[in-house]
C-alpha cells in the first residue's frame, strides 16, 4: 500500500482517505455486527427451538431495559465519564412505581413520578460530577449504593405485585402481526433520537470532542460541565423509564430489581466498540453489542448450557474487545511512527542538500 501524496489542500483533495465501503467495513461496529450475525446463524442451525418467534419476543423483551439504558450510557462514556448507578435508579424507580400504585395513585401518574425521580437521581450524579468536581466513578459507586439503599429501604424485601392489568398487558404486548414486543416502539424512537443526537448534531460533535480532549473542547466554546450534567440527567430519566417497564414486565416492584445490571450494560456498551477512554464509538455498535450478549445467553440457555457460561463468555468478550482495541491502537501508533521516520529521512536528505546558513 503506498500512502497518497501529502499536498496542499485544494478541490482535488479527497474528503476521505478511504472509500465509503472501507470506512464502514473496517470498523469495530462492523465486526460486532458480523459476530452477531454469525452467532444468530449458527444458533439457528444448531439450537433446537431457537428459530421460534418466541425466542425473538423473549429476547427483545428481556433485553429492553439494557437496550434502553445503553443509549444514554453510550453518550456518557463517549465523554469519558461513567454512570454505575443506572441499575439502582431502575430499582428505585420500580419501587416508587409500586409504592405509588399501591397507595392508590393512577398508574400513569406513578410512572411519571418514577421517571422524574430517575431524572432527579441523574441531577444528583450530575451535580456531584460537574459542580463539585468529583470523579464520576467514585460518585456513581456511592450513588449506586445510595439509590439502591433507598429502594430497598422503602420496600424492604417485600414486593408489590398488583398493577393495573391493562398496563402490564401493554408491557408484554406484541406489535400486531409480529413477534416484536411493543416496548421496541419507544426504544426505536429513543434510539433514533439518541443516534441523531450523537451522530448528526453539534451537541454530538461536542461529546466526542469532550471525550478526546476536555481542554480543547473548552477552548472551542463547549460548556463541558453543562453538557455532562445533561447526560447524567438523561441517563437517570431513561433508567427511570426502564424501571417502570421492568416493573410492568415482571409485575413486580422490588428494591433489588435489576441488581448488577449496570455491569451488564457497561459490558455491552464497551463490547459495542465504545472506548472507555472516551471519544470513540457509535450507537449501532452498542445496540449490536447488547443484542450479541442477549442472543448468546438465549441460545445457550436453550441449548441447556447453564447461566455461568454466559457470564464467562461476557467477561472474555469484554476483555478481548478492550485488549484488541489496545493492540489495534498500538499498531496504528507504529504505522504513524513509520510515516514520521520516513518524513525524518526525507527531511534529513533535504537538510543536508541545502544548508541555509552557508
Amino acid at each position, binding site marked *: 500500500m503506498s500512502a497518497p501524496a501529502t499536498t*496542499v489542500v485544494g478541490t482535488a483533495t479527497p474528503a476521505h482517505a478511504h472509500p465509503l465501503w472501507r470506512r464502514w467495513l473496517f470498523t469495530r461496529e462492523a465486526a460486532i455486527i458480523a459476530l452477531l450475525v454469525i452467532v444468530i446463524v449458527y444458533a439457528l442451525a444448531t439450537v433446537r427451538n431457537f428459530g421460534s418467534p418466541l425466542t425473538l419476543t423473549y429476547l427483545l423483551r428481556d433485553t429492553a431495559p439494557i437496550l434502553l439504558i445503553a443509549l444514554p450510557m453510550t453518550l456518557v462514556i463517549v465523554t469519558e465519564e461513567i454512570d454505575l448507578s443506572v441499575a439502582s435508579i431502575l430499582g428505585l424507580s420500580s419501587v416508587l412505581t409500586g409504592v405509588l400504585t399501591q397507595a392508590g395513585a393512577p398508574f400513569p401518574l406513578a410512572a411519571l413520578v418514577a421517571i422524574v425521580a430517575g431524572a432527579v437521581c441523574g441531577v444528583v450524579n450530575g451535580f456531584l460530577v460537574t459542580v463539585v468536581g468529583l470523579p464520576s466513578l467514585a460518585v456513581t459507586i456511592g450513588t449506586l449504593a445510595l439509590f439502591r439503599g433507598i429502594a430497598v429501604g422503602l420496600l424492604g424485601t417485600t414486593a408489590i405485585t398488583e398493577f393495573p392489568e391493562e398496563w402490564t398487558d401493554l408491557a408484554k404486548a406484541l406489535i400486531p402481526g409480529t413477534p416484536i414486543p411493543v416496548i421496541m416502539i419507544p426504544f426505536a424512537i429513543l434510539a433514533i433520537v439518541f443516534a441523531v443526537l450523537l451522530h448528526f448534531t453539534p451537541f454530538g460533535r461536542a461529546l466526542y470532542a469532550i471525550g478526546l480532549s476536555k*481542554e480543547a473542547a473548552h477552548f472551542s466554546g463547549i460548556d463541558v460541565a453543562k453538557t455532562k450534567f445533561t447526560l447524567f440527567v438523561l441517563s437517570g430519566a431513561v433508567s427511570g423509564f426502564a424501571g417502570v417497564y421492568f416493573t410492568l414486565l415482571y409485575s413486580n416492584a422490588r428494591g433489588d430489581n435489576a441488581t448488577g445490571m449496570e455491569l451488564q450494560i457497561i459490558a455491552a456498551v464497551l463490547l459495542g466498540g465504545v472506548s472507555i477512554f472516551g*471519544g470513540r464509538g457509535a450507537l449501532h455498535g452498542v445496540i449490536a453489542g447488547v443484542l450479541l450478549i442477549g442472543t448468546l445467553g438465549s441460545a445457550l440457555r436453550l441449548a441447556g448450557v447453564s447461566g455461568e457460561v454466559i457470564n464467562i463468555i461476557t467477561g472474555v468478550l469484554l476483555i478481548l474487545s478492550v485488549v484488541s482495541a489496545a493492540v489495534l491502537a498500538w499498531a496504528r501508533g507504529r504505522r504513524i511512527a513509520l510515516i514520521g521516520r520516513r518524513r525524518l529521512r526525507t527531511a534529513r536528505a533535504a537538510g543536508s542538500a541545502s544548508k541555509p546558513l552557508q
Partner: protein
Amino acid sequence: MVVAPPESPVPADPPSSPASPLLELTDVAKAFGAVVALRSGSLALHRGSIHALIGENGAGKSTLVKIIAGLYQRDSGGFTLDGDEVDFASTAQSKAAGIAVIYQEPTLFPDLSVVENIFMGRQPTTRTGGIDRRAMREEAVAIFDRLGVRIDPDRVTDGLSIADQQIIEIAKAISLDARVLIMDEPTAALSGVEVERLFAVARSLRDEGRALMFISHRFDEVFALCDTVTVMRDGAYVATTPISETTVDALVRQMVGRDVTDLFPKLEAQIGDVVLEVEGLSRRGVFRDITFQLRAGEIVGLAGLVGAGRSEVARAVFGVDRYDSGSVRLSGRALPKGDVRAATARGVALVPEDRRKQGLVLDQSVTRNTALAIRSRLSRWGLLWESRETAASREWASRLEVKTSALDTEVGTLSGGNQQKVVLGKWLATHPSVLIVDEPTRGIDVGTKSEVHRLLSQLAQEGLAILMISSELPEVLGMADRVLVMREGRITGEFSRAEATPENVMTAATAEAAA
C-alpha cells in the same frame, strides 16, 4: 540585545575538542508519530564546564534532553557517555549512570511531601531496608540551605508555586550527586535572587568537575553562567562556540537562520475604531489591573517573559477562565464573563498557546477540527451533516495551504506547522473581528512561520484587530503596531512601533525597580 546583520561566519560542523567529552550526542534524530521533533541533534558536554543550549521555541532542545534522560529513545544517531555507547531504556538507567535532569515542566507528585518528592525511588534506607526518614529529611534541609531557600520539607507539593516547584526539581537533581547535570529552562519561573543562588550552586558543581548543561531563552544568563554555547534550529545542530568568542547578535542569527527582517512582512493597514476594551481586569494571584484597547486593523504585540501571565489575560478575555474584577467590552457592549460561546458569537477568537492540548482534538480529522467552533452555524434545523463540515474545512484548509493527503486525516499526524494552520483556520472560520493569537509560531519551521506572519498582516489589513502574544522579541517588534509588556501579572510598558526597541521592551519585562 540587538538584532543585527551577521558579523562572522559560523562553523557548521561540531568542533573537535581536545579533551574527550563526558557525554556526546552525534546526529541524533527523533520523530513522534508523524511529527519530526529532532532531525540531527549534536552535543558534547565536558567535565568542569557549563554548556548552554539555545534555540527558538520548538527547536528540539527539550527533546534532546529527554533523549539524554532515557525518557525517549532516539530513532538514530550516536550517544556516548565517557566514551562508551549507551542506550537508556528508562530514566532509571540514566540516573544510575550519573545523569541528573531538570525537566522544563516540573513533574512532582502532588500528594507526596517535598522530601519524598526529592528522594522518590532512591530513598536512603536503614540497615533493615526501611526508609530512613530522618536522614532523608536532613539531607533535603541541607540542600535547601545550600540553595538558600526555605520550603517546608514536610508539606505536600500540591499548591506550591511554579518557582518553588522548580526549586524542588533543582534540589532533586543536586541530591543525585550526578556527573552530568542537565537543566532545561530552570530559571524561567525564578526571581533574580533565586537565579543567583542557583548559579552559585551550578558554579560550585562545575568546580567539582561535573559537566553541566543549561537551557535558557535569556542571553544575559547564558553569558553570565556558561562557557560554551550550542545553537539549534528546526531540530538540527547549528553551531558550537566558546562563549568568549561570540556575541548576542551572532547567536540570534544562528538561531533564526536568515535575515530577521525577511520574516516579518508587515503591511501597512488602516487603523480604525476601538473594537476591544479591557479595563481593570484582575484575577487573584495571576494578573492585576490589566487595561488596554484594541483597534480594527491594528496588531498589538503582548511581550513579556514566560510566566508573566500573558496567556492568562488572553484566556480571561476570551472567557476560558474567569476573572475576579474588571470588564471586557466589545464594540462598546460588555462581554459576559467566562462564556466562550458568547465571545465566539460576538466575534472574538483565540488561537491558544498549546495547540496540541488546547487548540486541537488530536485524534479527530482536519474536517472535525476546522468545523468544531462553527458546528452550530453549520447546522440546519439543529442537524449537522458531514458534507457541510467538509466544505467549510476544505475552504479554510485551502486558503491556509494546509498540507494533507485527505481531509479526514487525523490532525495529530500532521506536522506542527500544518497543525497550527488548522487551528488558525478553525478560528478564522468563525469570521472574528478580534483575533488573539498566543505564541502563533511556537515550534514551527521557518517557512511556515513567515506564512503565518504574512497571513496575520493580511488579516489586519482586512480590518481585523489582532492581539499577538509572543515570547520572541523579534517577532513582536517586527509585526506589532503597538507593544504592550507584562511582568508578574501587570502591564509594565506600552510602546508605539517607533518607540519599541529591544532594550525598552526587555527593561519593562525584567526590571526589578519598575514595580
